[in-house]
C-alpha cells in the first residue's frame, strides 16, 4: 500500500476522533454524478472563479488603489515623465517591472471573461433543458444573481487600472447614474465623493472589487454547490435513466480525477491564453484624463448589451416635465431594460410553473424540442441580447464591413423589435417539427433510403425500426395537457374565485402547450407496428407468389 494512501487513512482516523468525518465520507465519497459535456460549463465558471481569487490576491500585492497624481518613471519608455494616477502607474509597474506580473494580470482578465461567458452558456444549458424546474428554482435564482453580480464585479475590475479606456467607461456609468430620477444626482455625489471624477472613486471601487463582491460571490457559489449536491445532479433521458434515479460515475475516484483534472485544464488553457494573447493593453491607452477619449471605445463583452441599447435608443428626453429632467434616452436602455430583463430571468421558473400547474419534482432533463415554447422564448431572448451586443460595437462593425453607422443604428432600432419575434416563430415551428419527426420515428421507424419495386410495379420504401436507446430518449417526453379555463360559476351558481387569473393562465397554457405533438400511446405504437408488420408480410407473399427472391431487409 502506498504511503500516501496510508497517511491519508491515518489522518482521517485522527480527524474523526474530533469531527465525524467518516460519517460524512461514507455517504458522499461514492456519490453518483451523471456524465455529459454540457455539465462541464458550470465547472468552467467555478474554476475560472477560483483562478480569479488566486490571481487577484497576487495583483493586490502590487496594485495601489489611489487616484493621487504621480509622474511615471518605470520601464515603459513611451509613458516616462507623464502624470498619471497611482492606480495606473502601479498597473504599469505590475505589467513591466514585476516578473510574471503581466502574466498574472492577463490570466486574471482572461479568467474574468471566461467566468462570465461560462456562466452565461451554463445558464443557457439550464434554461433549454428545463433544469431550473422544481426543486431547483432557488438555485436558478442564485445562479442568475451571480451573473448579475459578476457583471458588476467585472466592470469594477476593468475600471481599477484607471486607464483611458476604462475611465471613459466610468464616465458613462456616472452619466447613467445622473439620469436616475429623484436620487440620481445625490447618488453620483455619494459614490464619487463629490463631483465626477473626484479622488475617492478608485479606492472605494477597490474595496468593492476585492472584498464585498468576492465575499458575496463566494457565499453564492458555496450555496449553489451545496444545493447541487443535495438535489443530486439532473440527467438526460436515456435507457436506464428515470426521474427517480441518477446514473453515472462515483465522485471518488472518477469525478475526483475528471473534475479535478478539468480544473487544471481550465487553468492551463487560461495561462496559455495569457502567455500568447495580449488582453487589455492598458499601456497603449494611456492614463485617464477626463477630456480625452479613444475612438472605437468598447466595453468588455458582458457590458456590451447595455452599451448597445444606449447607442441605439432614440434621443428622447423631457427637459422639463413636472419641474424635472427625465432622460428617457438613458433611463430606459440602461436602467429599465436591464431591470426588466433580470426580473424576467429570475422569475422565469416560477412563471413557467404557474403556467404548467406542474408541482412534480423534475430530475430528468427536457430535450429542448419537447418544450417548444420555452426553447423559442430562450432563442428570442438570446436574439434580442445578441442584437444589442452587436450594436454595442456598431462603430467597429460599420468600419469592418464598410457600412453606414447611421443605417446600422437604424437597423438595430427596428431589428431589435422585429427579429426576435420572427426567431420565436421559427424556433417554435422548428421544435414542433422535430416533435412530429420523433413521433414518426417511434411509429414507423427510420426511412432507410432503400426503395423496392415489387413485381406488380408498386414501389415501397423500407423503414427500419429505431434502436431502444433512441426510443428511450424519445419516450421520456412528458406530455403536459394545457390547462382549461374553469367555468365562470360552479354548478351552484357560485362565481369561481380568481377567475380572471385562471383565464389568463389557461390562455398562456394553451399558447405554451396547445400545439405540442402528443407522444403516441402504446396502442398507437402497437397499431402502427401491426400495420407495418402486415404490410411486410403482404410484400413477402407477393414476392413469393412471383417467385422472386425476398430481400434480406424484409425478413430481418
Amino acid at each position, binding site marked *: 500500500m502506498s504511503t500516501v494512501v496510508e497517511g491519508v487513512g491515518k489522518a482521517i482516523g485522527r480527524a474523526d476522533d474530533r469531527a465525524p468525518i467518516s460519517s460524512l465520507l461514507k455517504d458522499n465519497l461514492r456519490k453518483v454524478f451523471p456524465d455529459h459535456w454540457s455539465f462541464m460549463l458550470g465547472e468552467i465558471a467555478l474554476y475560472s472563479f477560483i483562478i480569479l481569487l488566486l490571481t487577484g490576491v497576487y495583483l493586490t500585492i502590487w496594485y495601489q488603489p489611489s*487616484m493621487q497624481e504621480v509622474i511615471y518613471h518605470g*520601464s515603459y519608455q513611451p509613458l516616462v515623465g507623464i502624470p498619471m494616477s497611482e492606480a495606473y502607474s502601479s498597473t504599469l509597474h505590475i505589467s*513591466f517591472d*514585476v*516578473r*510574471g506580473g*503581466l*502574466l498574472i494580470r492577463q490570466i486574471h482578465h482572461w479568467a474574468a471573461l471566461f467566468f462570465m461567458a461560462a456562466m452565461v452558456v451554463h445558464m443557457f444549458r439550464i434554461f433549454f433543458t428545463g433544469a431550473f424546474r422544481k426543486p431547483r428554482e432557488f438555485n436558478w435564482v442564485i445562479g442568475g444573481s451571480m451573473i448579475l453580480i459578476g457583471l458588476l464585479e467585472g466592470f469594477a475590475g476593468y475600471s481599477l487600472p484607471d486607464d483611458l479606456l476604462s475611465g471613459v467607461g466610468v*464616465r458613462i456609468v*456616472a*452619466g447613467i447614474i445622473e*439620469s436616475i430620477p*429623484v436620487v440620481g*444626482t*445625490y447618488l*453620483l*455625489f*455619494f459614490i464619487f*465623493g463629490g*463631483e*465626477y*471624477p*473626484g479622488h475617492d472613486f478608485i479606492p472605494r471601487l477597490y474595496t468593492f472589487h476585492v472584498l464585498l463582491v468576492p465575499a458575496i460571490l463566494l457565499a453564492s457559489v458555496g450555496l449553489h454547490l451545496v444545493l447541487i449536491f443535495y438535489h443530486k445532479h439532473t440527467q438526460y*433521458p436515456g435507457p*436506464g435513466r*428515470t426521474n*427517480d434515479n*441518477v*446514473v*453515472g*460515475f462515483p465522485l471518488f475516484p*472518477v469525478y475526483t480525477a475528471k473534475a*479535478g*483534472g478539468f480544473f487544471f*485544464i*481550465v*487553468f*492551463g488553457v*487560461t*495561462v496559455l491564453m*495569457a502567455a*500568447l494573447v495580449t488582453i487589455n493593453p492598458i499601456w497603449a491607452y494611456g492614463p485617464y484624463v*477626463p*477630456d480625452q*477619449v*479613444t475612438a472605437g*471605445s468598447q466595453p468588455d463583452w458582458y457590458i456590451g448589451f447595455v452599451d448597445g441599447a444606449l*447607442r441605439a*435608443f432614440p*434621443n428622447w*428626453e423631457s427637459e422639463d416635465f413636472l419641474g*424635472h*429632467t427625465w*432622460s428617457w434616452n*438613458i433611463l430606459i436602455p440602461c436602467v429599465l431594460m436591464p431591470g426588466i430583463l433580470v426580473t424576467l430571468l429570475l422569475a422565469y421558473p416560477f412563471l413557467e410553473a404557474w403556467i404548467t400547474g406542474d408541482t412534480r419534482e423534475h430530475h430528468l432533463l427536457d430535450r429542448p424540442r419537447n418544450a417548444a415554447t420555452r426553447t423559442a422564448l430562450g432563442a428570442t431572448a438570446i436574439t434580442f441580447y445578441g442584437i444589442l451586443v452587436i450594436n454595442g460595437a456598431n*462603430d467597429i462593425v460599420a468600419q469592418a464591413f464598410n457600412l453606414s453607422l447611421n443605417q446600422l443604428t437604424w437597423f438595430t432600432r427596428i431589428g431589435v423589435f422585429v427579429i426576435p419575434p420572427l426567431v420565436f416563430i421559427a424556433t417554435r415551428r422548428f421544435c414542433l417539427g422535430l416533435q412530429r419527426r420523433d413521433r414518426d420515428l417511434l411509429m414507423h421507424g427510420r426511412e432507410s433510403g432503400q426503395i423496392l419495386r415489387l413485381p406488380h410495379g408498386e414501389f415501397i420504401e423500407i423503414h427500419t425500426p429505431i434502436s431502444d436507446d433512441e426510443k*428511450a430518449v424519445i*419516450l421520456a417526453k*412528458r406530455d403536459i395537457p394545457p390547462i382549461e379555463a374553469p367555468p365562470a360559476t360552479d354548478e351552484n351558481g357560485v362565481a369561481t374565485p380568481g377567475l380572471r387569473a385562471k383565464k389568463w393562465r389557461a390562455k398562456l397554457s394553451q399558447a405554451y402547450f396547445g400545439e405540442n405533438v402528443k407522444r403516441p400511446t402504446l396502442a398507437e405504437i402497437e397499431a402502427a407496428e401491426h400495420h407495418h408488420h402486415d404490410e411486410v408480410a403482404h410484400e413477402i407473399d407477393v414476392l413469393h407468389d412471383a417467385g422472386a427472391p425476398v430481400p434480406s431487409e424484409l*425478413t430481418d
Partner: protein
Amino acid sequence: MSNDHKTDVATTGIVEGEIVEFPLPPHHHRLTDTDPRAARRAERQVSTMFVLSGVCIIAFVAAYVAIPETSYINLGPVGTLQTSNLVLGLTFGLGTLLIGIAAIHWAKKLMSDEEIVDYRHPVGSPQEDRDAAKAAFDAGVAESGFVERKMVRRTLLGALALFPLPLIVMLKDMGPLPGDSLRHTIWRKGSRIVIDVTGQPLRPEDMQVGSLVSASPEDLNEIQEAAGDQNARAKASIILVRMKPSDIVSEQGDGWSWNGILAFSKICTHVGCPIALYQQRTHHLLCPCHQSTFDLADSGKVVFGPAARAMPQLPITVDSEGYLVAQSDFQQPVGPSFWERA
C-alpha cells in the same frame, strides 16, 4: 423483421404522460479492461504527462531567474511580446494543462467506467419531521409569549425597524451634497482660452478655417493642483472650431462667436464622453462612445444619435491684447442631464 423492441414497451407499459423505462444497456469493456498491455501503455502515457508537467514547472523557475522582464521577442504575425510573459506563461500553462490531461486520461482509461445507479428520494423532509419541526417552533412561540404579549412584540418590531437607521444615515458623508456645482464650470468673464496640450493662449489668427483645437481655461492647472483632482477639467474642457462666418446657420446666443470661431463644450450631453471627432466639411461633431452627432454650424444641435440636447456653446470674444477669452461661464449646465437640471 422482428418485433422484439415491442416487448420492452409492453413490459414497462406506456401510460399517457408518464415516462417509459428501458433497462440500462449492457456495459462494453474497453481495450484497457481486457488487454493488460493496453492498460500498461495507458499507465505509461499518464506517467509521462505527469513527468513532463514537472519538467515544465522546473523550466518555469529557470526562466523566472534567467529572463529579465525588460526583454522582448518579435513573433512576426503575433506581434511583439514580453519574453518573460511568453516563456513563463508557456511553461506554467503547459505544466498545469498536462496535470489535467493526465488525470482525465487516467480516469477514462484505467478507472472503472461501469455506470452506477443511485436512487433519488423526495427532496423535502418527511412529514413526521415537518410535524416535529412545527411542534418545536410552536412550543418556542408559546414559551416566548410572542403572540400574547402584544406590547413586547410591537415594540420589538418597532425597535428593529429603526435599528438600521444609523447605518444608513452615516453614509451621508460619502460625499458633499450636489448644491449647484453641476451648473457651473471654472470659466468666467475674461478667462483666456489656452491650447490644451501646450497651455499656449490663442489668438484668432492662430486658427485656420476648418481647424479644431482642444482648449481649456488658462487657470485650469492651478485649480486642479490645488484641488488634487480632475473635476475642473471634466467640466471645463472645450473645443474651438473655425468656419467661414457665412457657413454659420445659427448660434446659441448673439455675438457668442468671433469671426467664425466658435467654442463648444467638449463633454457630450448624452452620458459625458469627451468628443473630438470632427468632420470639417459638414461641421459635424461625432461622439466616439455612442455616436451622437452635433451640427456645430447650427447651434450645436443634435442631428443623429442618442443625445437629446445641443452641445452647450461658450460665448467668446477677444481681449485687449488680442487673445481669445470667454465672455462668461456656460449659460447652461454642461455634460449629461440630471434630475434637477430643468
